[in-house]
């Protein structure tokens, strides 16, 4: 019956002024590979339910699980049920669940198993008929990257990667997008062979966070920040992502990857790009990416990598009142592992706007507390009409965008201490976005999954951005590889001494976030 491609603009019920109407995904299914994984259980499947509960999934939506388990549909449904019950954000409603449940299918098999993929192909065709998914299917690869090649080749072989009649097929992959530039290119090549680049969605759940998007609103919707958002006024920028937990049960994943590959390459460089980029022509996916790519291409490394970087491994200690073991004592970690759990780098952005302004990026595990923030630290006032003793306690002005937890914006400036004496001291002014746990502020994964199903890509990094990220990081990683064991730092502190020294050499200090 599909004679031409129907565009929503022809829909008389839609009106750009009608901002109440949410976009609901069209008929489709989501096929998840690796449903037994942590991510699928804790994030993906609950997010699917939350979307259903908020009425944002299409009627007749189908969820297909693929794994090497001897399960029937009902067994898988039970797994989904349990994960939804334990981890969903919105309340559990039996009728929503019953409806979702009708679209749940399971296909058992190995990634090398032709028969299993033929079965998957049949299942998907059957869903088109029974559930009316109309040939629209998204494949979520929640599996280690080494299997990506097998799976996409299987999708190609079984005809699942192509569609007809204007229906779509999309593939979703998670970070890490490779472990260096070469492997990232290889990965991109593997997937690009089967899926066109417009159908590949790279999920970086950080980009789904409201505050990251808020950063763009803060910068480009206001007049009071942008005029001082440059080297004339900014002294330096600090981007921090700190975790208070250790590697937990992820030794297998983490050993050999480390903090820089895990966090800096994607999250922190993305935050840097959003903070440093020029104003995009529009907020369309293409224009925003263009600006981000320009900034990432302008990132330069410190000349002496020993002085401009720092890394460490957490040692045993007390973290928030709990005794904890060191990284090298964790189960599954070799006592001679050189994987870093803390990484800090000093980068510069070679543009007129940022000439001479260092960007300090740091991330680590078992640090003081869990926090992600972007702090723009301003220069001191060029002249202070106060005596030196009046302003002894005055630091530098700062604008801090808190990404998590407690999302919001903090401004730090000087204010007079009450009393007869003239004395100026730093004060903080806070803005907190509303409670992050209401029904209405979507958890990052929900938003990203919905965007995949809608085919709306602005929040997803393109492979050019990924490759630029590796271009920045590769020399640092190569340098570290020659340097042997990272420095130890006590758990529950703010990282190794070398990181503090790195800033001290520039006459600066890390913020205590």
């Amino acid at each position: 019956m599909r004679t031409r491609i129907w565009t929503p603009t022809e829909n008389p019920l839609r009106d750009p002024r009608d901002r109440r109407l949410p976009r609901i995904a069209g008929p489709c299914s989501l096929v998840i590979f690796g449903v037994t994984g942590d991510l699928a259980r804790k994030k993906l499947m609950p997010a699917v339910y939350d979307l259903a509960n908020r009425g944002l999934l299409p009627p007749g939506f189908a969820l297909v699980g693929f794994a090497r388990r001897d399960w029937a549909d009902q067994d898988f449904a039970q797994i989904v049920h349990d994960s939804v019950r334990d981890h969903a954000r919105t309340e559990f409603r039996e009728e929503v669940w019953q409806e979702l449940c009708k679209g749940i299918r399971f296909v058992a098999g190995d990634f090398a198993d032709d028969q299993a993929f033929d079965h998957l192909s049949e299942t998907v065709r059957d869903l088109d008929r029974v559930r009316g998914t109309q040939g629209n299917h998204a494949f979520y690869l929640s599996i280690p990257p080494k299997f990506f090649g097998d799976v996409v080749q299987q999708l190609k072989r079984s005809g699942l990667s192509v569609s007809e009649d204007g229906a779509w097929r999309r593939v979703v992959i998670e970070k890490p997008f490779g472990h260096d530039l070469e492997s990232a290119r290889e990965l991109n090549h593997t997937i690009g062979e089967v899926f066109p680049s417009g159908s590949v969605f790279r999920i970086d759940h950080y980009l789904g966070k409201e505050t990251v998007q808020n950063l763009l609103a803060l910068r480009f919707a206001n007049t009071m920040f942008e005029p001082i958002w440059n080297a004339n006024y900014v002294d330096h920028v600090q981007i921090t992502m700190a975790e208070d937990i250790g590697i937990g049960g992820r030794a297998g994943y983490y050993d050999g990857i480390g903090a820089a590959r895990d966090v800096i390459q994607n999250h922190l460089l993305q935050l840097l790009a959003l903070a440093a980029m020029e104003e995009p022509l529009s907020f369309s996916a293409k224009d925003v990416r263009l600006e981000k790519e320009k900034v990432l291409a302008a990132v330069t490394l410190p000349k002496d990598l020993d002085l401009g970087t720092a890394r460490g491994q957490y040692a045993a200690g007390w973290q928030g009142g709990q005794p904890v073991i060191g990284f090298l004592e964790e189960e599954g970690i070799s006592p001679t592992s050189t994987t870093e759990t803390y990484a800090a780098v000093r980068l510069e952005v070679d543009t007129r706007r940022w000439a001479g302004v260092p960007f300090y990026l740091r991330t680590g595990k078992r640090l003081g507390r869990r926090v992600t923030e972007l702090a723009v630290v301003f220069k001191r006032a060029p002249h202070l009409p106060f005596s030196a003793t009046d302003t002894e306690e005055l630091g530098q002005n700062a604008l801090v965008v808190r990404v998590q937890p407690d999302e919001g914006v903090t401004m730090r400036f000087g204010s007079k201490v009450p009393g007869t004496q003239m004395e100026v001291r730093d004060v903080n002014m806070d803005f907190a976005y509303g409670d992050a746990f209401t029904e209405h502020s979507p958890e990052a994964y929900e938003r990203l999954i919905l965007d995949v199903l809608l085919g709306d890509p602005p929040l997803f990094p393109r492979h050019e951005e990924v490759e630029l990220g590796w271009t920045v990081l590769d020399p640092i990683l190569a340098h570290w590889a020659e340097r042997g064991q990272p420095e130890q730092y006590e758990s529950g502190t703010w990282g190794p001494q070398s990181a503090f020294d790195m800033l001290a050499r520039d006459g600066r200090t890390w913020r205590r976030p």
Partner: protein
Amino acid sequence: MRRLDDTTAAKVAEAIDYERFLQGSSAVSRVLTLVIVADETTQADAVRAAAEAAREHPSRILVAIPRPGRGPARLDAEVMVGGADGLGELAELRLRGPLAHHVASVVLPLLVPDAPVVVWWPGQSPEVPAEDPVGRLAQRRITDAAASARPLKTLETRCRGYQDGDTDLAWTRLTPWRALLAANLDQPHDPISGGTVSVQKGNPSGTLLAAWLQMRLGVPVDLKASKGPGITSVALHTARGDITISRPDGGVALISRPGMPVAEAALHRRTTDGLIAEELRRLDPDEVYGETLDAVHHYLADPPASQPAARSSKSLASRALTPAASASASAKATKPAKPAKRTAAKPAAKKTAATKKTAAAKKSAKPATKPTTRSGARKAAR
């Protein structure tokens, strides 16, 4: 919590500041002031809903409870700041005696400086919200036709009294329905020749939905009475059968389309806090609602109702009332089904036509604002 008996607005403001100081936070991000004008029977539920919505939109909530009666003018207040439920700032104000008629005078000094003001009447609401003394302070005025004694009558009043910034929870309740309908028409479908909305008797949302569909689709949309709860089904007629969304139990919708398997989707009746949170998300005028009210005006004047008896008597009466309105509505009804492509110029043109015809009905055209001429025309016709 602090109680202030026989107090003044200034003392209440002081108490809020002091309570906030005691909480240890001197700068709370309040993005707006929400004024709730309620009576004792509606205030408790309204406060609960507003407090829930305030988690998303940190606000100062002022609950004004007028208690007219004999006795001297007196203001009693209870102030609450912070609290375990994530509430921002709440002041319950009881206005006794003659003060009950001067709510605005108490509310005005308590508004958060330079932040938007939203007023919400959870129960009875003024005829023209924008001209109410409290309504005049607000960018956005929330009423609830369904909470009034005669919802459909109230909806008519809404049509006459509409000004930019007005909104009604009867409209907000429709969002999930409208979203689902719009999503269905995002899919390829045959031309739509008409529609039917089945709704519980006396439910104003049903009338709004029918009028909206008729306006947007350009085809006649009937209203049919059902047992409820709320709206129970919407059918859009096409040559190959109906596109139907039915929700018999107020929870799950069954969606059937010609040539497609029947599907289900969550379509819950909504809670008040969800409605208020949605309202607070947008503080600019809701043009689509305004146009829909315009359409309701025409719709009530000349409904394409399925009951012929009801239709003839009603439409006769209304035809005498606003000849132009019913003429345009019936002209619309005979138009062939085609997706109404709306341009920016179109609504404006329609508005001038509306002004013209009301002016014609009134004969003595007096320069005044749009809604007043319209209500004036109604009164004159009566």
